[in-house]
């Protein structure tokens, strides 16, 4: 599928969890008029809580397969036990938590006692939010793997909407960490906004996610959230960004109203007189000028 170059995909990531990705994503989805919004944190999707979408369609997601041993046919030869690299065969049955669905046991079993079937690993929700816009999110079933595949599915759907409906933005709320769902969400985006906080952990994790994002060669900017919690570390972050030639998209002040808004399941933008709301607005406006360059 060719993606219309006038659609810009903006991905919000952080490395460290809990720095404010979803708060910012929720604000941006209100500000970006002609947009599609996608929540790619499929492990712990939270954006729907603020956007209160109307679910139009729920589809099943089968990420992989799982093996099951038929006890009537099993001859106790233990070939499966020896072949499984994931220690998933325990007492002649498959521990479904440990099974990664490679099929080794199924193929090696001389008694054809192992079944190998598709496994339901999550759901995709196709929704509408105000102004008749599309919002997509997904929920991985607790404990499942294959989150990267689910993110890819979700993004495919979201991009298709963007092209069909001639949107300007695809706003993507990303997962924490630097693992497979993060990689899957990075593929094909035009810009990444990294949300960090002025703590030594925040800076440490920022450096790791920056290395990952740089390998994707995509426009990257950073937001320092709660910057006034520790001005020294905030300054260290700014120095680091300067060294790496990464632009600072803006700083957001620690504002108790952010927590209050969240507790009432509202976007911070519903408190426009508040400092954090104004700062987020400024960041959004600065992204509009960057838009032409990316």
């Amino acid at each position, binding site marked *: 599928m060719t993606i219309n170059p006038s659609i810009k995909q903006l991905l919000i990531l952080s490395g460290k*969890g809990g720095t404010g990705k979803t708060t910012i994503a929720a604000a941006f989805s209100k500000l970006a008029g002609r947009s599609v919004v996608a929540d790619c944190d499929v*492990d*712990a999707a939270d954006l729907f*809580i603020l956007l209160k979408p109307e679910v139009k369609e729920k589809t099943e997601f089968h990420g992989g*397969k799982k093996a099951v041993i038929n006890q009537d046919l099993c001859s106790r030869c233990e070939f499966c036990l020896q072949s499984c*690299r994931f220690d998933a065969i325990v007492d002649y049955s498959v521990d479904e938590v440990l099974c990664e669905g*490679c099929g080794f046991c199924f193929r090696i079993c001389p008694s054809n006692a192992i079944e190998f079937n598709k496994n339901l690993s999550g759901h995709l929700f196709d929704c509408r939010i105000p102004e008749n816009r599309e919002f997509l999110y997904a929920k991985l079933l607790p404990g499942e*793997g294959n989150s990267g595949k689910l993110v890819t599915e979700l993004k495919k759907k979201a991009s298709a909407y963007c092209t069909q409906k001639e949107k300007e933005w695809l706003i993507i709320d990303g997962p924490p960490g*630097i693992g497979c769902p993060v990689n899957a969400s990075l593929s094909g985006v035009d810009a990444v906004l990294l949300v960090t906080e002025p703590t030594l952990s925040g800076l440490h994790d920022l450096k790791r996610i920056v290395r990952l994002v740089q390998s994707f060669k995509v426009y990257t900017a950073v937001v320092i959230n709660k910057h006034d919690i520790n001005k020294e570390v905030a300054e260290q972050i700014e120095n680091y960004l300067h060294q790496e030639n990464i632009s600072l998209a803006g700083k957001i002040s620690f504002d108790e109203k952010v927590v209050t808004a969240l*507790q009432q399941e509202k976007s911070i933008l519903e408190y426009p007189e508040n400092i954090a709301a104004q700062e987020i607005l400024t960041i959004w406006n600065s992204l509009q000028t960057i838009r032409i360059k990316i």
Partner: protein
Amino acid sequence: MIISIASGKGGTGKTTISVNLALSVQPSVYIDCDVEEPNGHILLKPEITSQKEITKKMPAVDLNKCTFCGKCSELCEFNAIVVMKSDVMFFEDLCHSCGVCSNFCPERAIYETERSFGEIRKGHIKSESVSFIDGTVKVGEMHGAQLIKHVRKEIKPDSINIIDAPPGTSCSMVAAVNGTDFCILVTESTPFGLNDLKLAVQVVRSLGIPFGIIINKYDENFTELDSYCSSGNIPVLLKIPFDRKIAEHYSRGIPPVQVRPELKEDFRQVYKTVNSIMQARCTPDEKR
């Protein structure tokens, strides 16, 4: 005894709680299983005594033997192999190192090589009786859960082991929590915290692990969280109100118990409660 600290939502305070607990119930072992973004070392500042690279198996092909039949690609459940006219490509990000391709290749043309994908460090905390272990996956490597399994091999079963788990509820979180004796789920007084707590509770329940909750940045005005815990009979082990001082110390990498030693008693109480919950779960026969 192995206690895992997990959360669902990121940034709720797993590392702060794990570090404080490890410092409060010495002798103990702190094990950082958040291999994508390990932060425990920032707070604990361990003296590292050993460091080792961890490898995983990766397939490679002997093109002299390969007939480009495509069997490997057909059998690979992870779509990690593409067979072309005169070459074979392995996508390392997708490969789970399961060994199916090398084992079932009719020409025996596929062999396995070892590739480093992360490291494990061991050490101890100066003037404390706390051992330190952490795992760090290389940037760009996908299989954090695999590294977590290696990190857990370093557990010292006779000690109090505190596992700092990664956020989320997927395979990495399960790899860190599965088979532990007790899981402490850390949440916060927001709808995000509550929503993700519910997901994490589903995971630990399905794994059959006894668990309790610590509410960090506790706010009594957010009553939904308290009613969820009481209606589900979920023990709340500790409530820590938001304290800007604690946040500021954390930002400098200083664990709260080092600036407010009286907190140690709270964490010792958490450990006692965990123990009594576990004892209550034993059948009368086991107790005797």
